[in-house]
């Protein structure tokens, strides 16, 4: 896991310093006691509900038909994988997560490199860059839907008309490209997140080594691929992993911009709809179990494939 690499140096530190004999003498329970409240609380609030979800996913349970409640075996999972809506939701979730994470990661990397230089107004530009991340997600989604995308008075079509005159095309952005509309709004919010972590990574680079390489005649591109990227790797992994964890769960944008219509319902929205509107508890739970498995797969597999390439290069 990527975050482990980020914390490993500190792990060693603790090992080196080592709890001394004086501290060791007190019993194991004295050590565990401060941990227990948080541990028990988290298990109660996150693991127990998931176990319940797992149980319900094997049940035939629709709140509209309370009499038919009973054991369903793998029926819900069979329905999750055969139903076209659910399959669509799985595909949308994967496409949405991957495109948002990859695009905002690349943009974030480029902008972090631009901001890693000294220039007049750098602080102002950095502040402007993080602004999108500080807009409440629902508010951001409303802003994009109504103030930017609206075909009649949105800013995008307004700019088109302002620049190209009255005959300018006035596309209906959300209807024409619903998923891209959601991706763009999410990329706008997540690019600053990626940029902040990557910029912090860039600034922790040992500059004297870079200077030495430059004096030895290394080109900017060589320095970037051989020194900057390997150094940034753990930061890239960290931001991609955290970004994926949050984006795979996105509900606000899908809910606000399209209400899951036009083929944009992702799994979180689909589950919300299945259980909240359709009251089909069994099927919603089965889909929930699928999301958990999917999240784990995306978080590990995506990272592995994306970084196996230049891991070998840097060797």
């Amino acid at each position, binding site marked *: 896991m990527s975050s482990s690499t980020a914390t490993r140096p500190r792990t060693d530190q603790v090992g080196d310093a080592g709890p001394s004999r004086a501290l060791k003498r007190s019993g194991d329970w004295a050590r565990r006691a401060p941990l227990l409240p948080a541990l028990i609380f988290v298990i109660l609030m996150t693991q127990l509900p998931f176990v319940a979800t797992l149980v319900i996913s094997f049940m035939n349970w629709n709140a509209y038909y309370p009499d038919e409640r009973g054991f369903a075996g793998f029926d819900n999972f069979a329905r999750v994988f055969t139903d076209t809506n659910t399959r669509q939701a799985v595909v949308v979730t994967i496409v949405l997560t991957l495109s948002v994470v990859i695009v905002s990661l690349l943009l974030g990397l480029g902008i972090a490199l631009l901001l890693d230089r000294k220039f007049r107004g750098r602080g102002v530009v950095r502040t402007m860059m993080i602004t999108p991340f500080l807009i*409440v997600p629902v508010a951001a989604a409303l*802003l994009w839907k109504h103030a930017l995308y609206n075909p009649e008075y949105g800013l995008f079509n307004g700019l088109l008309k302002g620049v190209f005159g009255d005959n300018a095309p006035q596309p209906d952005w959300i209807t024409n490209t619903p998923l891209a509309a959601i991706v763009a709004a999410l990329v706008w919010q997540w690019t600053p997140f990626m940029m902040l*972590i990557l910029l912090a990574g860039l600034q922790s680079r040992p500059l004297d080594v870079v200077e030495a390489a430059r004096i030895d005649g290394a080109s900017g591109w060589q320095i970037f691929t051989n020194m900057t990227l390997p150094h940034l790797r753990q930061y890239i992994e960290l931001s991609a992993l955290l970004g994926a964890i949050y984006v795979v769960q996105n509900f606000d944008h899908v809910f606000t911009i399209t209400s899951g219509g036009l083929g944009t319902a992702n*799994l979180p929205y689909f589950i919300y709809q299945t259980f909240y509107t359709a009251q089909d508890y069994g099927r919603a739970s089965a889909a*929930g179990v699928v999301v958990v498995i999917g999240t784990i797969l995306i978080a590990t597999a995506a990272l592995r494939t994306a970084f196996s390439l230049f891991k070998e290069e840097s060797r």
Partner: protein
Amino acid sequence: MSATTSSGTTSEQEVRHARPPRSGVLLSAAAWVIGILFALPVLWMVLTSFHHENDAAKNPPDVFAPLSLDGYRSFFDAGPWPPLLNSLTASVLSTALVLLLAFPAAYALSIRPVKKWTDVLFFFLSTKMLPVVAGILPLYLFAQKVGLLDNIWWLILLYTSMNLPIAIWMLRSFLAEVPVEMLEAASVDGASLPRTLKDIVAPVVMPGIASAALICFIFSWNELLLARVLTSTVAGTAPVFLTGFVTSQGLFLAKVCAASFVVSLPVLAAGFAAQDKLVQGLSMGAVK
């Protein structure tokens, strides 16, 4: 400019070392343009919120339309104070609870580590990967059964569990830097655990506590899905209020922009005031 271009004898490395001003100017300009592009939707939102509805709906847009507070007036007429106060209550109290639980836990994972403390640490992280939707139905059914639906305390407890792993990771990475000798001395002097925490550990990790608090506050304030499912009229939060805002017919753009701006204002203020804390918090303490 002249220094590098006029002296033709300057070697390739030296030119790059001195960074030719022209490409530097271009890169700086690019940074400015991108920064402005990213901030533009927010600037547009703020400007539109101060326009009359009629001017806000103009195409092409009228940037210099007369300013007005109509948008804010109709937003505040819609009764936003109870949801705003609910959001504040949920965010502040859950953040306080998070810190209360996370601090001792992080202590037990760094300074006097329990056995297999890395496993425990990764267990906490793994709960963040468990999507909220995977547990939301049982949380809803339980709340329904015991009468916690539309109760702000249920939301506070859930936000606490949602943010606790982040805070534990963050605080642990700060606590790992506390000098252990000081703790030994305190232990020899017979200081109690709460006293040790307060006098020796807390001052060193104050920045970490601030970062954790900031990020927990922002995530709680932003949360929509749980609030939407588990609350309604009494305990509804500001994001839930926003989703129900665009139901009226006719022009509403200025009103929506005003509402979005007001609801985002606490996060904007906190984030701008503590930009560096933001990075620490977002990376769960991995980046300092």
